[in-house]
């Protein structure tokens, strides 16, 4: 565990990708095989579910440390992480043990079915024997909250360095529904048998945002353009008579979408489709807002009512596998042709259609269509080179996302709250308001978009200009105006303003504007009518 805790610490503290890859490659070369497999599982998000609730851990740690619970609770927002808070308050260990990561994971699996009384004794005993720096990782594993900022691509790069196997091959082997309990280092990583897991998706091909003018991409005729839908990017896999749906986050989401299950009957075996899962408005024949889809995601089973109100539909972008053959090296144009031919044979009631291609002769024509994206509930356009293969991961040049400019509104800062963790000493969480006649109506919260220097400046100002305090929230003098940028807007009866924004952030501090010059609720409502 010490070795894994050190790896976690290195990955967590270094900002350099090369240093992360080097640390990970070193671990994947030197650690015992079971530990390596567990490390890959944990770093790729395959963490075991929570065994102990973090509130229980907090209670036990307070007791062990001889501290009142309120003091631990007061410490938590400063640290910003409960597992870390607990690791920091526990007294020094009584013994110096070092069990392997795999041993601890087995220990965890054995603990899960036991009664809670047994949990407490076991956890206290484990803490007593563990070095302080191991406890953080241990706590995170216990509470199911283990996360570390490494991408799947970084893990495969490191694994490739450690094993000498090409990264794309490894990316493919690492996908799918495995756990260290159901496979081994040899079987999963080293063995050359891609057919051993029929559910396995292909690594998604991702696009870079287009920053230069579209005209710089060359002849418009070399490119295919389609809507960039605001749904769940996914792969539908039909193999061995079964249907598997994967989200881009590499989650198997088949059970969440019973309305897509008929695809198993409609698609021939050996088919893999890349597309976007959307909640569909049958009457208008267009997607519903993303929020409607979101209501389905939080649920293990979807009630009938939701299935009827927000039925799912897959809009297909690409055909990755046909009759069991990997089509990814073929030019996009050819794959798209095959996709269209395949989907033409489907009956109209199938919850699957090709995502329409835009018709355009010039970049200007396409730009005009892009401007209307919001009214189609799309985020913008995707531009894909006709000759492009289906790359694994993000590659510059062949695929671009051409997103809409965000919506913007000028708002008055009304409430401020200190941030968590790294930002606990700064005011970073702000509530903004617009004018409704003589009154300010709060309509959005934003946390990001300012520089460190601006956060420091506004923090000093908030301290001097606090009008009132409500717990951690401070009401400030309505004086500063910020430009709030956001991606979408919708009606929301839960909010006082009747409006909810998607991804609001502070785009600019409008020092040139007085509070009276900020936007009005009427202006905000006009945006809602246009784009909601």
């Amino acid at each position, binding site marked *: 565990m010490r070795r894994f805790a050190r790896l976690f610490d290195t990955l967590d503290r270094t900002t350099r990708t090369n240093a992360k890859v080097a640390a990970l490659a070193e671990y994947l070369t030197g650690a015992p095989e079971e530990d390596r497999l567990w490390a890959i599982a944990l770093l790729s998000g395959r963490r075991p579910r929570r065994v102990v609730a973090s509130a229980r851990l907090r209670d036990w740690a307070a007791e062990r440390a001889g501290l009142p619970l309120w003091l631990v609770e007061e*410490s938590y927002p400063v640290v910003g992480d409960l597992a870390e*808070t607990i690791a920091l308050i526990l007294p020094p260990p009584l013994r110096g043990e070092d069990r392997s990561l795999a041993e601890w994971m087995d220990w965890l699996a054995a603990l899960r079915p036991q009664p809670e009384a047994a949990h407490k004794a076991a956890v206290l005993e484990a803490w007593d024997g563990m070095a302080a720096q191991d406890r953080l990782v241990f706590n995170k594993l216990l509470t199911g909250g283990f996360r570390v900022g490494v991408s799947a691509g970084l893990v495969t790069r490191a694994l490739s360095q450690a094993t000498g196997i090409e990264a794309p091959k490894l990316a493919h082997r690492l996908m799918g529904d495995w756990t260290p309990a159901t496979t081994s280092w040899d079987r999963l990583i080293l063995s050359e048998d891609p057919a051993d897991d029929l559910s396995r998706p292909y690594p998604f091909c991702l696009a870079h945002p287009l920053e230069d003018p579209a005209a710089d991409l060359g002849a418009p005729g070399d490119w295919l353009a389609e809507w960039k839908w605001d749904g769940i990017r996914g792969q539908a896999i039909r193999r061995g008579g079964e249907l598997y749906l994967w989200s881009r986050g590499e989650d198997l989401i088949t059970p969440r979408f019973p309305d897509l299950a008929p695809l198993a009957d409609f698609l021939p075996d050996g088919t893999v489709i890349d597309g976007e899962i959307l909640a569909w408005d049958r009457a208008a024949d267009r997607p519903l807002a993303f929020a409607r889809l979101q209501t389905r995601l939080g649920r293990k089973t979807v009630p009938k009512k939701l299935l009827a109100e927000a039925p799912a539909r897959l809009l297909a972008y690409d055909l990755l596998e046909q009759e069991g053959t990997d089509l990814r090296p073929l030019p996009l144009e050819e794959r798209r042709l095959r996709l269209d031919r395949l989907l033409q044979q489907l009956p109209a009631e199938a919850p699957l259609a090709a995502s329409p291609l835009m018709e355009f002769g010039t970049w200007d024509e396409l730009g005009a269509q892009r401007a209307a994206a919001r009214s189609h509930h799309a985020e913008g356009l995707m531009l894909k080179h006709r000759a492009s293969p289906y790359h694994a991961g993000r590659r510059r040049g062949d695929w671009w996302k051409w997103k809409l400019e965000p919506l913007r509104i000028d708002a008055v800062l009304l409430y401020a709250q200190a941030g968590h963790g790294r930002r606990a000493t*700064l005011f970073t969480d702000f509530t903004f308001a617009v004018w409704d006649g003589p009154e300010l109506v709060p309509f959005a919260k934003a946390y990001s978009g300012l520089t460190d220097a601006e956060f420091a400046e506004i923090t000093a100002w908030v301290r001097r200009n606090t009008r009132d305090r409500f717990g951690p929230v401070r009401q400030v003098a309505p004086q500063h105006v910020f430009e709030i940028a956001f991606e979408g807007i919708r009606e929301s009866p839960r909010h006082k303003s009747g409006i909810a924004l998607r991804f609001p952030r502070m785009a600019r501090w409008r020092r040139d504007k007085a509070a009276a010059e900020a936007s009005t609720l009427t202006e905000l409502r006009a945006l809602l009518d246009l784009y909601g």
Partner: protein
Amino acid sequence: MAPVLSFTPEGIYCPAGDFHIDPWRPVARAVITHGHADHARPGHGSYLATPQAAPVMRHRLGDIRIDTLAYGATRRIGAATLSLHPAGHLPGSAQVRVEVAGEVWVVSGDYKIEPDGLAEPFEPVPCHAFISECTFGLPVFRWRPQAEVMAAIDAWWAENRAAGRVSILGAYSLGKAQRLLAGIDAGAGPVLTHGAVEATNEVLRAQGYALPGTIRVTPETKPGDHPGALVLAPPAALGTPWARRFGPASAGFASGWMQLRGVRRRRGMDRGFVLSDHADWDGLNTAIRATGAERVFVTHGYTAVFRRWLESQGLDAGIVATEFGGEETEGEVA
């Protein structure tokens, strides 16, 4: 009878002696615990500090009227008797003991319990009322012994030397930088200093504090001039063009705030070393108990929480509001 010390808009005030302690607004007579900017401010009529603290204050505040009082010596001012006692925070730092009619109050200033080999070690001063800082007054702040941290810095430096990188270590130019200089294995390679650090080094060397030799970074310093060097610089210089002149480098930062993973990540340093010139949770509790004080006032830091903790321990506790509400950011304190 009026209390020995009271809290006024100017700062902590002693009516019996008509003087202020670390006042933040200009006053006639100021007793100063140490030279940090939040304690030694410009504009007072006269200053009183330890002889060890005075040179740095002159260096920082320019032409001030300053009188000195040796550690442990007493001085009668009006009806008050005043003495200064080591606070262990940095060379020359003091706690201020004030006695009026047999009642003793002590103002801690900033303090640290663990001896660091450079600053005069902290001495507990028995008193009736203790005004304590509590910058790190939460149980998540607990320091490792200094030797362990210095060894970790030495190891990091050695690793960078082996990899052909310069090591740039961020540390406050008064106090932390000199403590590091005295604590690391300075003979392992060239040690370079930013002008702000070197200016303080010169003041302290002239007073007789033993600091290893250093090389001041000048505009002429080029990458490759000092391979494998350790560079000591104020935190604000990290990540600036000044710091980029050294070529391939690893950046570290030594501060108590490095205890928090979130702060380490926000600082974007390759390494964070948990080393503070303030008392940790255990240090604060030890120091407060050692004074035997029944009344404790807290200032600097998590005052509301720490006060509640002291009350739960049976002490009569209050908060000294400072001009900035005691909400210093991690950039302002070490």
